[in-house]
Structures are given as C-alpha cells and as structure tokens.
C-alpha cells in the first residue's frame, strides 16, 4: 500500500514536472518565501524584535525580486534552543522557504543551524557572533563579524588609539562568549606589544565584584576589558566607581543596550564598548547608512534605529542580492551565490562574505559621555 502511494506520488510529480517544463522545482512558482526565526518573546525578545523591524523595513522597500513577490514567514523561537530548532524545521518542511533569516543569539542560531544543514536551506544569521555558528556549515552565513575579530578590534583601539599599554581582563568564566572574547583580546593585545597584568574571573550570577576590583586597583592597569552582559556590566561599573578605580572599563557588543545607561547611572561615564559599525548619530555616515536611517524614521518616527535593526535589514538585502545573482529561488543556487557575495553596499559598510561565511566589516567604538552613548569611531583589527 505504502509503496503504491509513493509510486503514485512519484508519477504525479514527474507528470507535473513534464507538464510545466522547463521550470520544474516547486520553489519556482508563486511568491518566493523567506523564513524568519527570531526571539520575539522571552529574554532575548528585545533584540529579536528590533531585527524583525529591520527585516520588515527592507521587505517593504524591496517586495519583489526576479519579478516575483517575496513573502516573509515569521516564526518566534521564544529565546529557547529547542523552539529554535523546531522553528527552522517548520520553515523548511511546511513552508518550503527558499532561505531563512535568523537568529539573534548564537545559541539559538546554532540550534537552528543543525536543522537547516539537514534541510539544505541557506540561513543568514543576524547578530550571532560566536565562531561556531558557521564553523563547518555549508548553509549558514551571517551579516555580522565574529568574536575573535571583535576582541582584536578592542585591543587595537585601546593600544593604538588610546595608547594604553597595560591592560587587565575581568570575565565570567562560565560564559563561552566572555571566555572567547577575553582570550582574543588578550592574544591581540600581547601581539601588539601590550602587557596583560591580570586575568580575573567570576561566575554567572555573581553580584559582588569588590574583591576582584580591589585587586585590579592594586595592579593599576590602564584599562580593564570585561566582555560582560549589560546587567552585570553595570554592576561592575558601579562597584568600580564606589571603590575609586582609576582604570577605564571596556566591554563588547553585549553591553550595547539602552538599559546600560539606566542600570549604570552615573557610573557609565567614560565606559567604552565595541559594537557593529552603525549608529543613528554616527559621524561620516555612508550614503547607505543615511538612506537606512531616513527610511527607518519614516516608518518608526518615535523609535531610534539601532544596529540590530540594521543587521536585520542587511540580512534581507543579502539574500535578495544572492537570489538576483543566482537568477533562481532554488535553495542550492542561493547558497552558492551567498558564498560569493562581494562588496555589497549596505548601511554597515561594504559587505563581503569570507571563507568562513562571516561578514568582514570594521568594528564600531562607543563611549559614554555626559550620560550619552556616543559613536566615536571605527577600527579594523590588526
């Protein structure tokens, strides 16, 4: 019975193909479906929502490619790894999407990546910076840089621009993101000729950093690199200030959150962190960044665009570009075209996908001055 039905299905399929030749794949009829899996609820909802806003904005600007409508299929991965895998499975098996955008958060991206790899469907990550997301993956790409790049950029900025030669590291030793960034920073800073005087640790959930900070005050580094999340980062800033620390503190993109100022209060003064190279008030804005800022404000007059929105926007355009060059909405053709992306003009600069499927772009530097987040400059790591 089972054999017979499948034979029948095969015959039908062959018939269909012959009937509609020369276009044969199902992906070549009707609208082109692009899946989106992002955390729209749960603890990462903040970033996921902004990235979705960016994707929607780009879709509104460019609703058609190859003379076919583009349809977005949005699935919430609920900030949960299991849900993330299910979301990608649904997009591939039920919606037969041509390509997928997502996700915010490296662990969510990795959970989805395994499924996409089996389903042979290309995925473009938005802000998942862990190297493992695309490592060894044929179908995963991203529009952001990776942590080693970011860590060395931080070291380059501190050493070259600020002329600081003595650094220390304070990191959450139970968090992969922090451990990775800290060691990349350390390696680059030493390579540049700087000295790393201490590498102090804490565990996730710790709220008292006074002992580590007192030790750091004794060692008198010029700068302390702390790749923390914004909540604990704000506590570290406050305690450092209370103890009278004179060194500067520097974080990474996980500190890039409007709540950093709210939680840190006066202690954020002089704090720096790395981020992606876009800001609504950045100096020397490129034409693409200006255009993005304008269309964003037209669509959301009361909300400032941020880098997550820009990344979502970029992910959509990257896929559209690949579809145009491939001349088809076939998953394999898009994947091949994505890998060859070169010099695509975007609000985050010229986007080139490298051999490890990451986007190479300069790293933005933020500093807090008079309680304001100021986009200072961009650095490329050495």
């Amino acid at each position, binding site marked *: 019975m089972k054999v017979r039905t499948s034979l029948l299905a095969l015959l039908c399929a062959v018939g269909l193909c012959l009937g509609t030749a020369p276009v044969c794949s199902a992906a070549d009829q009707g609208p082109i479906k692009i899946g989106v899996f992002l955390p729209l609820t*749960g*603890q990462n909802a*903040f970033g996921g929502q902004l990235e979705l806003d960016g994707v929607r904005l780009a879709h509104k600007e460019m609703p058609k490619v190859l003379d076919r409508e583009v349809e977005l299929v949005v699935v919430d991965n609920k900030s949960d790894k299991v849900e993330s895998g299910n979301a990608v499975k649904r997009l591939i098996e039920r919606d037969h999407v041509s390509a997928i955008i997502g996700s915010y958060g490296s662990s969510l991206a990795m959970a989805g990546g395994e499924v996409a790899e089996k389903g042979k469907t290309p995925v473009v990550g938005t802000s998942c910076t862990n190297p493992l997301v695309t490592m060894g993956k044929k179908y995963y790409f991203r529009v952001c840089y990776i942590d080693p790049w970011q860590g060395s950029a931080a070291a380059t900025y501190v050493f070259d621009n600020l002329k600081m030669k003595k650094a220390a590291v304070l990191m959450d*030793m139970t968090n992969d993101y922090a451990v990775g960034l800290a060691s990349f920073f350390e390696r680059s800073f030493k390579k540049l000729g700087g000295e790393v005087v*201490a590498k*102090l*640790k*804490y*565990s996730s*959930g*710790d*709220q*008292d950093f*006074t*002992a*580590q900070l*007192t*030790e750091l*005050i*004794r060692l008198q580094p010029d700068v302390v690199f702390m790749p923390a999340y914004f*909540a604990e980062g*704000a*506590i570290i800033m*406050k305690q450092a200030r*209370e*103890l*009278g620390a004179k060194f500067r503190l520097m974080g990474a993109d996980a500190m890039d959150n409007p*709540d950093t100022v*709210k*939680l840190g*209060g006066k202690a954020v003064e002089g704090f720096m962190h790395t981020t992606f190279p876009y800001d609504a008030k950045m100096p020397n804005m490129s034409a693409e960044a200006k255009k993005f800022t304008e269309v964003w404000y037209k669509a959301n007059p009361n909300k400032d665009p941020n880098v997550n929105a820009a990344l979502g926007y970029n992910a959509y355009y990257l896929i559209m570009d690949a579809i145009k060059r491939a001349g088809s909405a076939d998953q394999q053709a898009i994947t091949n075209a994505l890998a060859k992306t070169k010099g695509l003009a975007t609000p985050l600069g010229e986007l080139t996908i490298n051999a490890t499927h990451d986007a190479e772009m300069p790293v933005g530097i933020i500093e807090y001055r008079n309680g304001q987040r100021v986009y200072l400059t961009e650095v490329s790591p050495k």
Partner: protein
Amino acid sequence: MSLEMFFQHCFNALTLGSLYALIAIGYTMVYGVLRLINFAHGDILMVGAYFVFFGTFAFGWPWGVSAIVAVAGASLLGVLVERVAYRPLREAPRISALISAIAVSFFIESLAVVVFTGQPRPVLQPDWLISEWQLGNIRVLKLTAFVPVMTAVLVAGLLYILYRTKPGLAMRAISKDIETTRLMGVRVDNIIAFTFAVGSALAAASGIMWALRYPQVHPYMGIMPGLKAFVAAVVGGIGSVQGAVIGGVILGFVEIMSIAFFPELSGYRDAFAFIILVLVLVFKPTGLLGEDLKEKI
C-alpha cells in the same frame, strides 16, 4: 598586599558577610521552628526587592515608605505560601514539605518572569546610603556601616520576639513538640503562619538591603544569595540565630579573602565557600553553634 588594601578587602568582606547574615537569620528561624528548609526564602527576598522597585518608580513613594510596604507585602506572601504549600503537608513526611518548598521557589520565580519580565531593572538608592567615606585610599560606602547595624537591629528584634513575647514562647514550644503545644491550647496554625510572616519580613528586609548594595532587581536575583545564606546558616548551625550571623560573616570573609590572596583562583570563590561548608560539616556536623539538642532556636 599593602595594609590599606587589606583593610579595603576587610570592609568589602564585612558588607558581603553581613548581607549573607541578614538573609541567613530568616532561613534559620523558620528551620528552627518547623524543621523545614524554606527554599522559597530567596524568592521572597526577590519579591521584597521588586516591591521597593515598584513603590519608588511606579508610585513615586519615598524609599522608606516603599521599604515598609515591601516588608508588609512580603509577610503576606509568606503567610499565603505557608497556607497553600506547607499547611496541607503538615502531617506528611518531611521530604514532601521540602519538595513542596522547591516547587514554591520555582513557581515564584516563573511567575515573576511572567509578571515583571526577565529584564533587569535599576533600583533607587537613597543618596545618604551610597555616598562614601574616604580614609586615605580606603573607600567605605555608608551602606557598609548601615547593613551590619540593620542586621544587629533585626537580630535583636527577632530574639526579643522569640524570648520575650507570647507568640515567641509558642514558637519555641512548637519547635520542641508540636502535638504537646497543641494540647496546651496554642493555636499552632496561627503561630506557624506568624513564623512565616516574620521569616518573610526578614527575607524582604534582606532583599531590600541586597538591592541597595547591588542595585538591580530581576526574577532570579534571589537564587544565589539564598543558596549562600543557606550555606551560612548551616555553617553557623542551622536553627541558631547567632550562628547564622557568624556563618554569614565567615562566608563573606572567605569569599573575599580567597580572591584577595589568590587572585589567579578568582573564579573559584564559590568552591572556597563550599569547602568551608564541607570542613565544618566534617568536624562539627551540627554547625559551629548548633547544639545537638532538640531545641534549636
């Protein structure tokens, strides 16, 4: 290490230790009376801190008023938890009550995520508490002095309730023999509810202090302090209020000094804390001040 640095570490340790002590006395009191480890203690601490957050930010009350409302609100929550989760299990084996306590803990945390969202929020710190004294290069927050004073006042108040009042007498009687106490005409259920009210008020008070020192509230903020305070209570001898204070201070000093003297091992501060716990339990299984008697208050 210079002497100055050493003193700075001492003050840091004293602040942390007295916070642990403050949380631990609530733990130990409920245990002393009911022989129940109230795992929801840390979560009531969290709720207390949230009440202050909402009082100051949403309603614009002064900090002091919010703190009093928070303590009262947490007491009510404690009574409610006792009524719903522990009273029906009074006759059940002790392990059932323990499991119920764990369930309550998870329930309150998850509820807090739904109601308050997981986003950490900043807490208002009254200026007179966060300004600092400067002695040479040593910096001491006024809070550092305030927390131990607060702990001492609350311990004194607690000891007064236990040894000088009628409900206190009934609480001590319950800790010895619940059935006999009932036969003496004491309304045992009411007294136990009162115990929870006091315990939760202490939890809220410590939560408020904790949020002053580490000025953020989020739904999981109570877990780590709760766990550490539990260790402090066991080190000091669970059931003993004075022991909880000593245990808390010891724990604070061990954690800070382990980093001060072994900065390379700074990631292992919790390991140091738990090694102390193991050592105490090996050499004095009842804790430092725990007596191997029936009465444990």
